[in-house]
């Protein structure tokens, strides 16, 4: 009697409920957003292309026949198609990286630039503009800047041998991020205020207006590589979102996993910042939306974030180029749409949030 054991005739044992494995509705919402955004992006613009023309073009391309309307073909294949692909890749990359970092740092307020990827990329880009690089050169400088900044943060973090390694990394990211911010300010002060400064300002606000078919491989290859690595590790990322001691006692090699996740997430962030400039909001908010749809487990969260992030950024980019006669910088629009949206969601979703 002193040590009561649960009897084998326990009433609870027969009552094991059917376990909810997934919320399939959530993923279909994300896919719906993606498809609707894609149709809007391809049909809307300075020249409206009806859905029937789009259908005809796709049909004739599949048949290998000549296009019925050359103007439609040029607009879709040379202009809107590449830009839509770039928006999908950038949105997916930022959302996936944001979700990965939120899990790794066990903090839902973290965004993909927490380790200085955006600040490093921005410094690279303004330096590229300052030294009058070409478009491709500026992109490469931004990409290298993002990777170098995070490598520096990681290196500094690794030299601190005591304390929670996750917290140390976070603090190193904040400190070096602000240092890089000072560097950006310095370059802007030194820049030619009539030629270079407007270009820098516009770059820092983010835009996909410069997306060309030729630039796509340098964006899509690193994004695909990093995203595949993160998708492969996605179940381990559940374990990595536990406190360090817990994850290690479960048998996870935390030091090695953390390096892999940071490297993959940094690769996709740096590539997307290099292509589109600083686009806020997506990496912070989309993982929350995805978590709201499919729950916190990365097994479903990561693919849903990718689909939803791509779809939403494509939608916002379409608005950016169609709302006003002059194109609105992407970073401004994401903040304008994202902030109120986020607040509404915060107020309504008291449960199932994290």
């Amino acid at each position, binding site marked *: 009697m*002193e*040590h*009561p*054991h*649960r009897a084998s005739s*326990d009433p*609870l*044992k027969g*009552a*094991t*409920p059917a*376990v*909810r494995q997934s919320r399939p509705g959530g993923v279909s919402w994300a896919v719906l957003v993606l498809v609707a955004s894609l149709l809007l992006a391809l049909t809307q613009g300075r020249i409206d292309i009806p859905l029937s023309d789009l259908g005809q073009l796709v049909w004739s391309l599949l048949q290998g026949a000549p296009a019925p309307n050359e103007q439609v073909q040029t607009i879709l294949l040379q202009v809107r198609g590449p830009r839509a692909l770039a928006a999908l890749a950038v949105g997916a990359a930022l959302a996936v990286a944001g979700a990965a970092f939120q*899990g790794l740092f*066990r*903090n*839902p307020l973290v965004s993909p630039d927490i380790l200085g990827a955006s600040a490093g990329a921005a410094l690279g880009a303004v330096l590229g503009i300052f030294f009058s690089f070409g478009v491709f050169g500026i992109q490469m400088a931004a990409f290298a800047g993002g990777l170098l900044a995070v490598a520096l943060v990681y290196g500094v973090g690794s030299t601190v*041998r*005591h304390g929670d390694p996750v917290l140390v990394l976070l603090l190193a990211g904040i400190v070096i991020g602000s240092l890089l911010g000072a560097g950006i300010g310095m370059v802007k002060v030194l820049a030619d205020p009539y030629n270079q400064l407007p270009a820098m300002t516009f770059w820092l606000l983010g835009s996909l207006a410069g997306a060309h078919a030729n630039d796509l491989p340098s964006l899509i290859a690193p994004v695909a590589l990093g995203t595949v690595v993160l998708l*492969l*590790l*996605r*179940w*381990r990322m*559940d*374990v990595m*979102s*536990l*406190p360090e*001691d*817990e994850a*290690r*006692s*479960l*048998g*996870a*090699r935390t030091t090695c996993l953390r390096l892999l996740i940071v490297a993959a997430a940094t690769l996709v962030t740096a590539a997307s910042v290099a292509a589109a400039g600083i686009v806020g909001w997506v990496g912070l908010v989309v993982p929350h939306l995805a*978590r709201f749809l499919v*729950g*916190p*487990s990365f*097994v479903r969260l990561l693919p849903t974030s990718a689909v939803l992030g791509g779809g939403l950024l494509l939608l916002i980019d379409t608005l950016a180029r169609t709302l006003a006669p002059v194109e609105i910088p992407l970073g401004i629009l994401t903040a304008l749409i994202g902030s109120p949206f986020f607040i509404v969601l915060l107020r309504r979703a008291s449960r*199932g*949030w*994290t």
Partner: protein
Amino acid sequence: MTALLHADGLSVGYPGRVVGSDLSLDLRGGEVLALLGPNGCGKTTLLKTVLGLLPALAGSVRLLDRALSAWPLAERARMVAYVPQGQASTFGFTALEMVLMGRTAHLGLIARPGAKDRAIAQQALDRVGIAHLAARSVHEVSGGERQLVLIARALAQQPRAVLLDEPTASLDFGNQGLVMRAIRTLAGEGLAVLFTTHDPNQALRCADRALLMRGGRVLGEGAVGQVIEADGLRALYHAGVLQVDDAAGGPPVFLPEFTDQATKR
């Protein structure tokens, strides 16, 4: 019977700060060892060293016939499981998802848990009596239930020893009973169990042996009936202790003294 986990002449602590020294303990299958001592006496540091989360400053920890530090991480996790204090996790995983994480050491780097792992996790939930919570978020359940989820996760590791850090801290009265019952279930199944606690009555009723620690040293070690007695507890906590005997012959109950009259005894 030889010990599953054996620590000898152990110094524990952090670089430049020794928290405890000359510590020894044995942990055997089917046996529950309670670790008692005042706040800051080094219980948690000892626990983390025995788990291999902190390196030993001196002395040795052996798991079966090998030094603990010589065990690869995953193999060690298949032998020894850790149940931390049940603080809320950042993300509201379901109880089943949480327990499935116990399968980490059994799965490859890019593998995801399959049907077999799911069955093991379900069974682990069942063994601690919370199968009905499988689909509930760990943010929605009570503190005691969350502790049981963590114990189920330790079971899903299929270890031979389970080490629990103050498993009943900040739990209400009823939940403390649930957790103690789960601990007895583990030992009944042949697992070696070590837990730290602030309640000598829990140790007396739930554990087989007790280790008393003060100021980083062992004050006493042995069968609970022998080491948990009024004078020993006074020396351990430097406090007055009131003993209430059970007329029916069961183990006595110890209470901290707080009236003037009694502290003079």
